[in-house]
């Protein structure tokens, strides 16, 4: 590309770059700067603290607990969504291929939770999980004892995982179903002609072929799940005890309930780095898979 065409190209992208710098660059620089201060928003006390906030985060035993809860919450949510989404996709592929009545309609209905705003979803579940909520009322109809869905430290995290999976399994389902429907039928036919059972076809042919789709879906959900805060914020506020305190909520609580914005900014930047790490993994894997396919 010549110098002239390069500068023309730069001139065209310059407005976008400026917008990006203003909307992402400036807040990011502000966040990094803030994270280097001890800053109490109520009293306005602001003092240079260098990297001490980051050191404190690493040394704080609370951090280990919060990270553990975050890994459990993220890992289990995405795992449930993947397994249930995959199973549903297999069932629906069969139904759609056999043109069974109601399946096209059901496919749409199943995806409705995705279009509901996460905050609204959280309020639905807050009301349903309440000791006086719908789940306990239904249990009561059948003579069951009320269950402390989000009021017991042993249950709360799993209740949040169910709420998360309920909303996002349809996303996995839709992505995987789309992937399944585009698999080359001649390869699957050939395997069946060679006498492969359905489980062998699934394990040895479909899953490897679906790998890029699954990877993208899982990584997108992992990223989304790590930055999720709505369910915890609305339903449990990180409790009971510290049983549902995830990293992002911990950052929120530090910044907007304890009003220690410096420490909170440092925590938020750590979450950002984690997410960026996942994005890099996603991109490099996609690139690798793309080059493998091209080589083939």
């Amino acid at each position, binding site marked *: 590309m010549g110098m002239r065409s390069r500068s023309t190209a730069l001139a065209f992208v310059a407005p976008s770059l400026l917008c990006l710098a203003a909307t992402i660059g400036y807040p990011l620089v502000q966040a990094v700067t803030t994270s280097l201060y001890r800053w109490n928003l109520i*009293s306005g006390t602001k003092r240079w603290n260098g990297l001490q906030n980051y050191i404190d985060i690493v040394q704080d035993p609370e951090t280990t607990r919060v990270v553990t809860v975050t890994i459990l919450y993220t890992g289990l949510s995405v795992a449930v969504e993947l397994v249930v989404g995959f199973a549903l996709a297999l069932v629906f592929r069969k139904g759609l291929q056999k043109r069974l009545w109601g399946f096209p309609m059901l496919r749409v209905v199943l995806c409705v939770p995705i279009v509901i705003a996460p905050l609204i979803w959280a309020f639905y579940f807050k009301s349903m999980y309440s000791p006086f909520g719908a789940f306990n009322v239904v249990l009561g109809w059948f003579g069951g004892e009320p269950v402390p869905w989000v009021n017991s430290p042993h249950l709360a995290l799993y209740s949040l995982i169910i709420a998360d999976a309920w909303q996002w399994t349809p996303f996995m389902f839709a992505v995987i179903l789309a992937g399944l429907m585009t698999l080359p039928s001649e390869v699957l036919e050939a395997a069946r002609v060679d006498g492969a059972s359905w489980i062998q076809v699934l394990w040895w042919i479909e899953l490897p072929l679906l790998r890029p789709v699954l990877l993208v879906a899982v990584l997108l959900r992992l990223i989304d799940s790590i930055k999720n805060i709505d369910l915890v914020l609305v339903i449990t506020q990180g409790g*009971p005890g510290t*049983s549902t305190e995830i990293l992002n909520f911990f950052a929120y609580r530090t910044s907007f309930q304890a009003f220690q914005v410096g420490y909170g900014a440092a925590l938020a930047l750590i979450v950002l780095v984690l997410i960026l790490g996942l994005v890099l993994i996603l991109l490099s894997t996609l690139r690798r898979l793309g080059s493998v396919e091209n080589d083939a």
Partner: protein
Amino acid sequence: MEQHIAPPSQTVTRRNLLKGAVAASGLAAIGASFPCPALAQAKTINVLTLGEGIFGQPFVDLAPEFTSATGIKVNAITMGYNEAIEKQVAAFAAQSSEYDVVQVDSIYIKGYAKAGHLQPLDSLIPNDQLSDYFGDIPLTFKDMYAADGKTYGMATIGNCQRFVYNGAHLKAVGLGIPQTWNDLLIAAQKVVDPSANRFGFVAGTERLAKAFSVWLPIFWANGGVLFDDKMKPIFADKTGVDALIFLLELVKTMPTGGAAYTEGDETKAMATGLGTLDPVAWIPDAYTTADAAIKPQLGTGVSPQGSATRAPVMGGLGLTVSKYAQDASAAAQYVAWFNSRDVQIGKIVQHGGQPCRNSAWAANASAKPWFPAVAESLKVAKVRPQIPEWSQIDGEVGVQLSRAFAGEILPQDALESSQKSVDGIMRDAGYY
């Protein structure tokens, strides 16, 4: 034969458009240099208040009356408690002129004043009005809204914890209304009957801001002290641990999930007759939402007596004028109007609020069944330390207490861990 007459050309050329725009701007500029008297008088103030129940309803309902009385328009911005606090903290930190009047929780007043975010009202509100006001409120209110000898806010809505109980449940087991915390524990244990769907203690035990305020009245009532004279935390002593052990015994008598009840659960438990004794209720919603069968069973009193005193936790929200207000004088008029004798006596209660003036409590004593008890409670209620670090301390201690409620850690460990965190916060803030 029809005749087609061509209309005169109406094409808008770029030149014409530019001419028009220039002419319009010129006219606007000329108009602006001759201010219209009617428009100049129509001041508007932005008021940030809570939009909920006793704390916010009067401000929403009475804004038109204030406008007709003063000619000042009110742009009322109302929202939930947490959102309102976040908004005001962010606006103050940014020195934004977004709000003229800000409704502030009393625990934040001194912090905001210290940071210079509030305007002293002494120079904005006439002396006679201020004297009339301060001669007519509980003394604690005056201290709560003052700093460095200046007044930074007016209480407006007076509130503190009150004791709500179900008299029918107590009567069913042959007990009267408990007067001491020990009596309350005995009663809570005695009334529990899961087969009758009847439980003992009820409180908002969820972490963050709630858990701490459940333990505090027991701790204070038994002579507990949070900080020494150098502001070093000393609450993890025997009194503190005993108060927490006592509280955990009470929590055992709560309905299922009681160890992490929200304020909504707390209200609902009393309103449905599930719970019997809520000595730390902040709002009257159990009464207002109870069904017809339960409502007559509910009673209200002052928080029980400990070995030293009665000590419900003082709350309340006051009106302040932002340092960055666009019109501080109009904002101060709003604050003064809502705290005036007439409005406090004749309008606040009628529009769902709770007054702060003694005369208003006296005049409205029978307006609501819980009013006499709240008026009595305000006289003995204790104020939480009004330091800028309080919200951080509240959160830290609240989390550890919640862990104790949930059985994650022992009471001693919860308090020692809290005290260590608070010690770090105070040291970091430069208290010692």
